[in-house]
């Protein structure tokens, strides 16, 4: 068993963290400002949809981090202690992430929510199906739920980050017991809030459609984003000369395995299972969600997802060695975070307006009726600028969270195990 000496290692961000915090923060805010300036290019409704897409992408990464943190305590994992602080640091952004939700909140409460969520439009009251669903899908209950979600996430991430940091100073192993004791409860709370948040903010974009697997799909999306993000974060922190001893090839290997397992295989499994049931039954109300995603330009986006999110990463990650070399796993993680954004985009944006389908009776006629022009959608600068700025803010927030604490939980009773652990 090899012993690792952390005394020579740089375990704090120091002034580097401050620089990245300011730089990415300024860039992020400037990006958001420019996006608002470009609002007219996209149009009001499209802008709000892009905003929702970018918000859900950064939220997914934070939720993935929260899941990972809770999971490590739930199963009393030893290997992950050296990387757990970084995951806690990303999850701690859930404390302020609601700020990015304000524009959507304002839109809904001001009564213009119908531009984003069809069920919030005044006309929805005349639609029988939406009227039947209104006991759940109404604005008051919607914002109460949103507040509950953000409160639960802030509380959980704060609890785990705070207690873990206090343990650094006190060295008290009982803190680990407390975190483990709350882990099952935290995991249940996480699962419920994450599932219903995805129902509320993504699935209800098409309120007549439903899929009980949708929450799991958004979970698969969020862990993909998180494992890619933490691999990149570790890679760049090591590039800056930090954590040289603490985080080894073995940790890259295990995070790579999880990216492969959750982000590639599990994602494909869930996405396909959801698709196949709907495809086989072929009931109009269920297929309505996949219809916009398999016609026109979206057909190609769906294909890009299958190959770019499953086939290619599967072949790249299935062997042992690409996960064990920092350079190769960082490149794969970089690709995965891009395709992860495409995936969230694909979840949020596609819609076929009723007007585009007027007069079409058979499926072939429907397909012909749909052109990029009739979809009323086109890719614009805001679609790139918004997620980039919000990811930049996420980096800034993470640097802020980790500004004063050690980058590894120095007093965790399992730290030794994590440092010396090896994959067979």
């Amino acid at each position, binding site marked *: *068993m090899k012993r690792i000496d952390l005394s020579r290692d740089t375990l704090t961000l120091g002034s580097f963290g401050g620089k990245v915090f300011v730089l990415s923060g300024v860039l992020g805010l400037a990006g958001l400002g420019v996006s608002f300036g470009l609002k007219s290019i996209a149009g009001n409704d499209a802008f709000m949809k892009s905003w929702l897409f970018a918000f859900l992408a950064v939220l997914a990464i934070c939720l993935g981090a929260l899941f990972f943190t809770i999971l490590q305590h739930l199963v009393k994992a030893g290997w992950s202690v050296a990387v757990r602080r970084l995951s806690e640091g990303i999850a701690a952004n859930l404390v302020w992430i609601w700020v990015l939700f304000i524009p959507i909140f304002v839109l809904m409460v001001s009564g213009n929510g119908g531009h984003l969520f069809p069920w919030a439009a005044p006309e929805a009251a005349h639609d029988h199906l939406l009227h039947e669903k209104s006991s759940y899908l109404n604005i008051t209950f919607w914002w109460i739920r949103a507040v509950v979600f953000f409160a639960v996430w802030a509380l959980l991430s704060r609890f785990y980050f705070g207690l873990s940091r206090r343990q650094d100073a006190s060295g008290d192993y009982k803190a680990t017991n407390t975190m483990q004791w709350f882990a099952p409860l935290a995991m249940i709370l996480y699962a419920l809030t994450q599932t219903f948040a995805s129902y509320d903010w993504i699935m209800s974009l098409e309120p007549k459609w439903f899929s009980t697997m949708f929450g799991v799909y958004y979970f698969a999306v969020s862990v993909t984003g998180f494992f890619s993000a933490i691999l990149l974060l570790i890679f760049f922190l090591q590039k800056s000369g930090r954590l040289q001893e603490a985080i080894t090839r073995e940790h890259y290997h295990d995070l790579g395995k999880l990216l492969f397992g959750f982000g590639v295989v599990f994602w494909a499994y869930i996405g396909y299972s959801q698709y*196949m049931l709907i495809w*086989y039954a072929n009931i109009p109300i269920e297929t309505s969600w996949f219809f916009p995603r398999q016609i026109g330009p979206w057909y190609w986006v769906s294909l890009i997802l299958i190959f770019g999110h499953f086939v290619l990463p599967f072949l790249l990650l299935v062997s042992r060695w690409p996960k064990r070399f920092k350079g190769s796993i960082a490149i794969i993680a970089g690709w995965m975070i891009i395709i992860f954004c495409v995936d969230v985009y694909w979840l949020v944006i596609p819609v076929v307006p009723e007007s585009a389908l007027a007069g079409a009776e058979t499926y072939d006629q429907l397909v012909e009726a749909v052109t990029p022009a009739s979809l009323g959608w086109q890719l614009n600068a805001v679609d790139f600028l918004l997620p980039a700025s919000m990811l930049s803010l996420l980096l800034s927030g993470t640097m802020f969270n980790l500004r004063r604490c050690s980058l590894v939980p120095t007093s965790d009773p399992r730290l030794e195990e994590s440092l010396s652990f090896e994959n067979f």
Partner: protein
Amino acid sequence: MSQSSSREKIWGYAAEFTTPAAITQAAKKVAAAGYRWWDCHTPFPVHGLDIAMGVKPTILPIIVFFGGLTGTLVAIFLQVFTNSLEVNLWAIVPVIGYQFEVSGKPLISGPAFVPVMFELTVLLSALTTVGSMFLLNGLPCLYHPVLKSTKLARITDDRFYIVIEARDPKFTDEATRSFLDSLGPESIEPLEP
């Protein structure tokens, strides 16, 4: 030693160690001395022992990959073949598939085939893994000289053994024995075939 009369029949030498650290150190020296037919026997997996012994990574994953790929291709072939409209094998054997129409789907429809592709991939991967593992490890092995010695029964409890086999090209009775002695074992045990 009383074994001098049976020296012709010796199968190998076993050197006994009491700690994982000791056997790891000794294994490095055996590997450096250039022995090839030798092995370590321990009651539990010892971290770093593979590296100390200089064991090459197994080729099992590559075999399994192609096993799995075979499963995928067999699944595609089976389903397309049995559902096909008409295939003329070498233009002389006409084969007509069952052509069951299920819920209005095309006869050759990708999404319906995926579960079978998945299952056969997993099945053939698993069978290839177990089968190749048996072949690569030389299993089933109904008799092994290491298991004959009653003293070496402690392999399963609290002792660590390095065994050098007589068939190693570098093996000579005296030299190997004194080499093992130089590693500082608790004891050295000659093994009968």
